[in-house]
């Protein structure tokens, strides 16, 4: 075991020295990409088996339960009503004249029926507006912004060049600030990048062959984009939009949706 760890550390050291030896000055640009994700607001819909099992659990729970005070009261009410119908002498008039359990249940049901739950389909969903987080409440949404690469503009995750003297995490925070405006609040999940992507420039720029993109993962907290027009896309829309290789690298670190 000890031997193995020593050998392993030796190998990594050799590897590092070798990598250093190849080029004292890196010929790649270091770029930080930020994957800002809005987590689902509403729980995803249940699938068939989940629904079935939920129903089973509910029935089991009722079968194993004791009667509630409301049910007892309802039964008493029934007995009293029966007695009243038969014009029995034992009827306790005080007990009958009050509100029955059935009345209370009806009133509660009516109140529930009147209550308007917010719709899962928001205005943005109806309009097909992708620029707001108030859409696809049951899904994960990822922020994409137009990025200028050389002469053409592509829609990718927000990204920016790393500057000398800052850590990659600081670059990621700066990128979000610069490209989305100060109003957008996000929470970074780690100091470490969660994904990697590498691409070559069509021709060398300032002696750099291409760019190595280190993705950082952050969760959306609050606020809006103010600077650029970005879109919040769900998984299938991301699939359509992103270039194939880039999409593969991004999909590596994203959670799969099961529905």
């Amino acid at each position, binding site marked *: 075991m000890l031997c193995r760890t020593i050998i392993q550390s030796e190998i990594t050291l050799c590897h590092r020295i070798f990598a250093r030896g190849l080029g004292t000055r890196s010929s790649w640009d270091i770029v930080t990409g930020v994957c800002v994700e809005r987590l689902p607001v509403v729980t995803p819909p249940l699938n068939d088996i989940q629904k079935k099992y939920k129903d089973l659990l509910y029935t089991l729970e009722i079968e194993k339960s004791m009667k509630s005070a409301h049910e007892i009261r309802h039964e008493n009410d029934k007995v009293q009503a029966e007695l009243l119908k038969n014009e029995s002498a034992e009827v306790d008039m005080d007990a009958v004249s009050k509100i029955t359990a059935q009345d209370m249940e009806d009133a509660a049901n009516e109140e529930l029926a009147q209550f308007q*739950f917010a719709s899962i389909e928001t205005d943005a969903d109806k309009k097909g507006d992708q620029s707001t987080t108030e859409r696809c409440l049951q899904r994960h949404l990822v922020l994409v912004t137009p990025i200028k690469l050389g002469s053409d503009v592509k829609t990718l995750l927000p990204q920016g060049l790393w500057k000398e003297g800052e850590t990659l*995490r600081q670059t990621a925070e700066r990128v979000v600030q610069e490209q989305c405006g100060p109003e957008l609040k996000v929470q970074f999940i780690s100091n470490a990048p*969660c994904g*990697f992507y590498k691409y070559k420039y069509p021709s060398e720029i300032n002696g750099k062959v291409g760019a190595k993109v*280190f993705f950082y993962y952050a969760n959306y907290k609050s606020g809006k984009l103010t600077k650029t027009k970005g879109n919040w896309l769900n998984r299938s829309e991301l699939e359509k939009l992103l270039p194939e290789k880039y999409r593969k690298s991004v999909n590596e670190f994203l959670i799969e949706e099961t529905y």
Partner: protein
Amino acid sequence: MMNLSLLRQFSRLALRPPSRIPIRIRNITTTPAVQFKTTDQLCAEPMKKKKKIDPQIVKAREERRRKKLEKQIRRLEKNARQLKPIDELEVPLDLLDNFGKRKRPQPKLTAEVIEARALLQKDWARYKREEYISNVAQIDRIMAAQRRALDKLLEESEDLYNEAIMPDLQLIPYEIKGPVATPPIKSYESPDGEYIDVSKKWDN
């Protein structure tokens, strides 16, 4: 040593402090001479006026104090045995009284229903297993992606790598909300209602 301490006792009477008196006594000690000096004792204190109190009152006061203490001790002893009950854990007596009344008649399940339920339980177990396996696979995939990114970063720059593997202390305390069953209604004010605090006070 003994002679010296005796001398200090009478130092007040001496005209000159004892240290200056040449002591021609042969002391045999195993320790080197210690140069500690004791301060002179005063052996008296300023006089205090004494109040005269009726002995009856003093007695009554004493009595009262003793009774008070005894009462406190008794109360403490009583409370030591009696623990503060937790209301939520105690079944109310009226529920225990009509326990039989609250029993629900057990439904007669047919063989088909029992069979269907058993099958559903098994299906559910299988479904959860698959879900678990896919979750683990996803976590593995995401961790591998991060590992790869970190390895690439190490190739690029060791300093950046060292910064990246530092723990992120801003994450603690971590708070996350949701997801919820129905979307929140904007500008909805929940009806607070009125309530009466019925919790008992348990101070001694």
